[in-house]
């Protein structure tokens, strides 16, 4: 073994560059230690430790936002540090903070061990943060699996509930299937890009820049094309794009509500981060756009149509939000299609993701307060009379749903607007028409939900048995968080910050 070579390789391992991920991993272990060390009556502080640690790491990330490493690669090219990566890191940590907060409400209703929930959320978050910065197919596969396996556990976390276990099993089978397909795609790409008989072959074939160079040199290689399609199918499963969305309604319904939120927002965003790294204008598959663009276009159109039509008939709000999430994945795919020709579309996608995060968590926060011990049973009828009983929750719900529907002047409207402008610039006209029709349909089911909360009155059944779960009172921390999310939805509708320059550049 060549010791010098090993030393040289190890010198590239800049552990300080990964301080947010390492902090989260350390924090996750600390929680388990605290559970053993602390007496049982002090266990209530452990979720606080998780939230405080997350908040501290987030602040640390902001302080170190413009670190000198931006643009550099560490760990022998496994990790590429970019501004987009920093943004996604912050995105996932905000998600984790909110999931932990919602988790407290849901876990309080269950006779379940509680600490492991926060532990797994932190590990999954760290994996997502690495995923957004990965620069190597091996890294991509390993962190994708780390987060998926963590999510299997989280989905089936209520293991006394059949619904949760069933959702976990379905997610497991679908997730493992997609991982298998993705892996085979990676193997084909590795095999063909390292083939010594082909021009521009590479000894480091799984490293993105080398792979990009190979694909540029071999623009019509069948095996490479097959590998690309298999990778796209694998990622398509994760983001719930048609025709790989079959798991979405069942899994979203059965999973505990905070985990549904985690799946809907963070896991989807992780999928899109990968998709943009692969299919964007400067992405790895850029030289195969003749293949990827049609595939993504058809996928986007079908996803928007299916998601919106299927959501129309739903009565369970978790299924409804799941299927509406499918249609949001379709709108985001529209942005990815546009990003193949314009770099500016990438900005639109990031803004859309943040607007979606803010609006979704507002809605999921309200859902958590209305759910009972049976977490999968959340019906539209349960929302009747919410405006009278709790005007605050009803208001947050209205803002969140309005933003998801894309009502001006909320952030969701601006997100859709930016993506649509990007799509218009890139010339995807008929896809844009489908998306616009999808928005109109989506307003219908979002307003059905708002109507239930504002204009319907709740009449208890005559025999006195309550048929809907009791509502959880709003604590001041969650109240502040929900109020903040609602205000943010309004605020970002008027002010888009650096994202707004996108419009000026037109």
């Amino acid at each position: 073994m060549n010791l010098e070579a090993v030393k040289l390789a190890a010198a590239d391992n800049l552990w300080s560059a990964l301080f947010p991920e390492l902090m989260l991993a350390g924090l996750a272990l600390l929680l388990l230690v605290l559970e053993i060390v602390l007496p049982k009556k002090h266990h209530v502080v452990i979720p606080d430790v998780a939230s405080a640690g997350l908040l501290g790491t987030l602040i640390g990330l902001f302080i170190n936002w413009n670190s000198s490493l931006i643009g550099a690669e560490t760990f022998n090219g496994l990790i590429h540090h970019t501004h987009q990566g920093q943004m996604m890191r912050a995105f996932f940590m905000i998600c984790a903070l909110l999931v932990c907060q919602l988790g407290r409400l849901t876990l309080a209703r269950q006779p379940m061990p509680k600490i492991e929930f926060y532990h797994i959320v932190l590990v999954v978050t760290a994996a997502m943060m690495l995923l957004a910065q990965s620069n190597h197919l091996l890294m991509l596969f390993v962190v994708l699996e780390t987060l998926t396996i963590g999510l299997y556990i989280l989905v089936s976390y209520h293991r006394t509930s059949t619904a949760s276990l069933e959702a976990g099993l379905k997610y497991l089978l679908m997730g493992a299937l997609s991982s298998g397909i993705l892996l085979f795609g990676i193997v084909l790409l590795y095999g063909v890009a390292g083939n010594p008989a082909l021009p521009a072959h590479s000894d480091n074939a799984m490293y993105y820049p080398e792979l990009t160079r190979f694909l540029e040199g071999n623009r019509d290689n069948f095996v490479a094309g097959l590998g690309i399609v298999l990778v796209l199918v694998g990622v398509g499963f994760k983001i719930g794009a048609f025709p790989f969305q079959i798991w979405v309604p069942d899994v979203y319904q059965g999973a505990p509500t905070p985990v549904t939120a985690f799946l809907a927002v963070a896991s989807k965003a992780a999928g899109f981060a990968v998709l943009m790294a692969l299919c964007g204008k400067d992405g790895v598959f850029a030289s195969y756009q003749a293949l990827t663009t049609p595939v993504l276009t058809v996928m986007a159109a079908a996803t928007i149509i299916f998601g919106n039509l299927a959501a129309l008939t739903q009565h369970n709000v978790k299924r409804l939000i799941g299927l509406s999430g499918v249609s949001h994945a379709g709108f985001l795919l529209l942005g990815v299609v546009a990003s193949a020709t314009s770099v500016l579309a990438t900005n639109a996608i990031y803004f859309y993701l943040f607007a979606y995060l803010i609006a979704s968590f507002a809605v999921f926060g309200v859902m958590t307060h209305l759910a009972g011990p049976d977490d999968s049973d959340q019906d539209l009828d349960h929302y009747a009379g919410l405006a009278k009983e709790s005007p605050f929750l009803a208001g947050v719900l209205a803002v969140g749903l309005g933003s998801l529907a894309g009502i001006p002047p909320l952030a969701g409207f601006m997100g859709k607007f930016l993506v649509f402008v990007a799509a218009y610039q890139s010339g995807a006209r008929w896809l844009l028409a489908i998306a616009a029709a999808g928005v109109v349909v989506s307003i219908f089911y979002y307003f059905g939900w708002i109507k239930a909360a504002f204009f319907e009155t709740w009449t208890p059944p005559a025999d006195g048995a309550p048929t809907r779960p009791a509502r959880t009172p709003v604590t001041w921390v969650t109240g502040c968080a929900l109020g903040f999310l609602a205000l943010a939805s309004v605020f970002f509708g008027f002010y888009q910050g650096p994202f707004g320059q996108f419009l000026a550049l037109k």
Partner: protein
Amino acid sequence: MIAPTLNAYLAVAVLLFAIGLIGVLIRRNTLVVFMCLELMLVASTLALVAFSRYNGTMDGNVFVFFILTVAAAEVAVGLAIIVALFRKRQTIQLDQLNTLKN
């Protein structure tokens, strides 16, 4: 003795992958589906080793270790979920697991 070529290995790998994929799609017993999923991973492993040998790089062989680890973790979690579900429902046939319906 004739040494098998890269294509022979790849043919076996593709065959294994196809058997696994078809099995996942048509079989209704969760455990059999789970085995088919493992078959898909094994197919990738075989193809990786063959490619690694043919290309003369070690990346593929190293990747196999990661796949083994990931597959073990997946099986551990998966079997735990299956056992918990069997205790609840006394069945693991996929078509009988239909609690989640609109």
